[in-house]
């Protein structure tokens, strides 16, 4: 288990968290290479199938990031995100995939927070071990 490197997927919204990730880059804030980013216009675009499909494909942990509540470019998209992610977190827990999905608000100014969020999440998933669906995904 010690050499387990988790595969992390992060969904970023176009307006805040993607820009936050950019800022982390511009500021040369180093963080683990385990993370991959998918950009969407608003975090409220993310739905259960994206999360489930990622898990099925063997992703060990998924971060959904968006603007802080009140900052949403689309007024209240992130409020929907919040509601949905709560449901999906519950569902994943019930399916035995506890703690593999995490929601975090990151503003465009929070490059440091982006770095810390990724670093902490990678550590958390590393401790949690591989996604049980991973071996099957690799087979394909």
């Amino acid at each position: 288990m010690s050499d387990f490197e988790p595969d992390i997927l992060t969904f970023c919204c176009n307006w805040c968290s993607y820009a936050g990730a950019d800022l982390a880059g511009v500021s040369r804030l180093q963080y683990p290479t385990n993370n991959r980013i998918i950009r969407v216009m608003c975090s409220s675009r993310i739905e259960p199938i994206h999360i489930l499909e990622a898990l099925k494909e063997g992703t060990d942990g998924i971060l959904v990031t968006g603007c802080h509540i009140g900052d949403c470019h689309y007024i209240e998209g992130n409020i929907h995100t919040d509601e949905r992610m709560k449901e999906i977190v519950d569902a994943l827990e019930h399916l035995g995939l506890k703690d593999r999905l995490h929601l975090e608000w990151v503003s465009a100014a929070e490059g440091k927070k982006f770095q810390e969020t990724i670093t902490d999440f990678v550590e958390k998933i590393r401790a949690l071990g591989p996604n049980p669906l991973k071996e099957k995904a690799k087979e394909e």
Partner: protein
Amino acid sequence: MTEQEAITNEESEEVRIGAFICECGVNIAGAVDCNAVADYISTLPNVVTSVVNKYTCSDAGQAEIKNAIKDLNLNRVLVASCTPKTHEPIFRACVEEAGLNQYLFEFVNIREHCSWIHMWEKEDATKKAKELVRMGVARAALLEPLQSSEVPVTDAALVIGAGVTGMQAAMDIADMGHKVYLVEQGPSIGGKMAQLDKTFPTNDCSICILGPKMVEVARNENIEIMSYSEIDEVDGYVGNFKVKVKHKPRYLNIDECTGCGLCTEKCPVEVPYVEFDEGIGTRKAIYTPFPQAVPLRALVDKSICIDCGACIKACERGAIDMDQQETFSELDVGVIVVSAGFDVYDPEPNHDFGFGLYDNVITTMEFERLINASGPTMGKVVRPSDVKPPKRIGFVQCVGSRDKNSNIYCSSFCCMASLKNAQLLKEKYPDTEVYIMYMDMRTPFRMYEEFYNRARDMGIRFIRGRPAEVTENEDHNIIARIEDTLTNEIVNLELDLMVLSVGAVSPESTETVRQILKVSRAADGFMMEAHPKLKPVDTTLDGIFIGGMTQGPKDIPYSISQGSACAARATRFLAQGKALTEGITAKVDEDICVACGVCVPMCPFQALSIEDDKLKILTALCKGCGTCMAACPTGALEQSHFKNEQLLAQVKNVFAYGEV
């Protein structure tokens, strides 16, 4: 999954992707082996060419992209370089110049999201870059061309509310050569400013500066004033609003009336004039709103009219028509400015500071009418209980503001208003004791602090603290018990008259307008701007702007600035004659949609509705956030450019497992 077969588009044209990997000098190449990335990418399905550039965004780099599109017949272009936030527009323009739809361009960020954050892990960074580009290739294959659509804009504006903000907005738009419908619910334009006595910080007479402006509005050929009218329905979207306006009956032919006042003289019914004089003065059942009213026309208050017919006899022009009914107009406008004003906080229900219990506790607006030279007392300040001039007057600040029991916000103008009124009192009745009981005196902006200093110099007494207990003695004097928090003393202040500096609240009538327009509302009840800093007068609905008190409490100069700002923002659409709609929008597949309606309340922009058992999307209203499609259980809704298949292709190709 195995979606990545050679995917072909509708014309079953083969997908041909060109991938351009940017070294960005050493910015990327320093941590990522770009050649290895390019080699790997060239093995992926649909990839026709993969090239490494020193700087892809340079002229040379862009030329290489354009040539490759032509020479290799590329129909998708992928650039792996820096962030789309800065460079996407550049490359989109580049591919468009080469004849490719700009949405067939895919951007992969391997600088901010890879080389710069993994500067000392070349091997892992290269692997990550490969996987990032792999995701991009998977997505690029599924991209579809999109077009932003243009909608024509009707060259007319609607301004709702003819207070000082609305008048300014209307005049500015009209002066730029566009038709304006100025709709006012009251019988005259002018708004709250017409009721005021003087205005701070220069203490000029309010109606003296407002009156000419009102006349100017009335004389402007491009402005059509619709007084005593209300917005009934609004339909449509930017450039194409259909507005139904309700004209309330004045029971009088407005074209015949000259505002001479003969009818008012003869009218036997007299009631307190609440609407304008705050109930201090009186008016008749038939009356003209105030001497400077525009239009200067009479109207009948049918609720109190006794149908005696005296006015009909008195009117030489036969203008009075007691059978008048409400009428409606249908307007086509391209833009809408909302400047629907405010109400003052009503202290009556909670009996704040004894208001409503004791006669000699009044509000600022009542005071304004009392001290106004053309007011009901001809400017003589008297107290209600015995109509005698008060010698000790206190102002209580922040009534209905900065208070979690009423409104938590600061109403912003009340400190200055009280300072002004205190000064006026001191000027008019120098022997009067004037107190201002406050929490903080808030005096931002030019000459405001000086104004405060002047008040201090004039001998106005400031007590930092607000009455904890207010009682009345046998002389109907007000006893206010206050802790002065600067001296920590308890003061029992005996006052002849106490004025409550009531704050601003959003009126119910504005809420009705808001609901008709479907503009969102902030927690404080005022309408919500699109962005608190960058778009202070825009709303999230294209073509609808808010100014003045509609957006929140503010003073006259700020309101007028916002009126002008609204005009400038709105006129952009009118001047261009067209509006662009977002290219990335929601689309519905009608074969799949079952019209369950789950999506409708998701849309913050009211772009979705169910009509005749079908989902209707007003693309002009859609901003392309994707909230609705995530809620759609059938997948009938798709966000163009972020379709499920496009996102899932990325998800499925995130990790290559040993391939790279």
